[in-house]
């Protein structure tokens, strides 16, 4: 899985203020309204996918594409609301954002054993450890978002380390989402670093 947000040279102070004071009205509210209904559909498809994987060992390709697009939608919404990217995030699964990239390879086959393991023991080996780590990471992300806001307001930039940390949190959440929803068999690492960095560190 590859998730990146391109950092801009400079960010607009006016847009930042507009997003801060009215973002809930013109970004969050319409997106959440549509996401609510699309989310119901998505949960139905996830449920059906579970059965399809159980019997065929494959994720239905069209469902997979839908869920990747749905994830990309939530990621670009988060990127904008966390002030990591500018511009209005496209509503719907068909949209894209020039600064946000999400590539998820389609798995040709998925393990039925892992599917059952996730369903029955996922709470213990996914939810609890990742939830515990992400809880503290989210506190740090919130704090950095607050500091970034002031940095953006006065300098029009976000320090690179802060930016990468916040993008890493989104990446971690995306990986976790993919694993929990059976779209990959790779257990998500306890890190927000890109896969290429993790691989080079491992070797």
């Amino acid at each position, binding site marked *: 899985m590859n998730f990146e947000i391109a950092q801009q040279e400079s960010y607009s102070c006016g847009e930042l203020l507009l997003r801060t004071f009215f973002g809930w009205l013109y970004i969050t509210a319409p997106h959440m309204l549509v996401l609510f209904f699309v989310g119901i559909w998505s949960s*139905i498809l996830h*449920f*059906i996918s579970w059965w399809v994987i159980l019997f065929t060992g494959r994720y*239905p390709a*069209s469902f997979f594409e839908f869920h990747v697009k749905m994830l990309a939608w939530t990621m670009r919404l988060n990127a904008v609301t966390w002030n990591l990217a500018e511009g209005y995030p496209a509503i719907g699964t068909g949209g894209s954002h020039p600064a946000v990239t999400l590539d998820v390879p389609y798995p040709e086959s998925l393990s039925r054993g892992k599917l059952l393991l996730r369903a029955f023991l996922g709470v213990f080996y996914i939810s609890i450890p990742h939830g515990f780590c992400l809880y503290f990471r989210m506190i740090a992300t919130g704090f950095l978002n607050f500091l970034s806001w002031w940095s953006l307001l006065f300098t029009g930039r976000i320090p690179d380390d802060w930016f990468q940390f916040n993008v890493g949190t989104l990446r971690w959440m995306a990986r976790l989402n993919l694993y929990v929803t059976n779209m990959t068999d790779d257990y998500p690492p306890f890190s927000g670093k890109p896969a290429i960095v993790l691989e080079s560190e491992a070797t």
Partner: protein
Amino acid sequence: MSEPIALPQPHELSQREKDDALAAYLMNFAAWGAGLPIPSLNLIAAWVYFLVNRKKSRFVAFHCFQACTSQIPTTLINILGVGMFVDYVLILNRDLPHFFWPYVAFAVVMNLIYLTSSIYACVLAAKGRVHYFLVFGRWAYARYYGPNAIALEGGSGRPNLPPTGF
């Protein structure tokens, strides 16, 4: 059209078409998937799925249409049962009528029959084969492969035109 359209054989179908077709029957479980005890939700899910997939291919559209329409009888039976329960017990606060439990038994049998045939159709769709449900199978065949089959291909509807007078 005056000639029936040839049915595709399993080796002519892509894996994606087979997956999309088999998922159509699994919409029967949609009510459980969303965790809502609304007996009509599976029908709504099947209908939405049909609308989304009807242009993909005739094979997919046939299965989606059959899966959607064949749910109508059991959905109506379930709605009637739930409606009766809600009406008598929750709204009127009266005892259930004497025919309620036999009706529930009838509904359970009908649902089990539908469930079994759905699973059978689902397995066949996954293999790229067709299975015709009673009545609804013929209807779906006539709609997508029969002599008067609807056209899936073609234009995107009414063209954009300037306002009248220009």
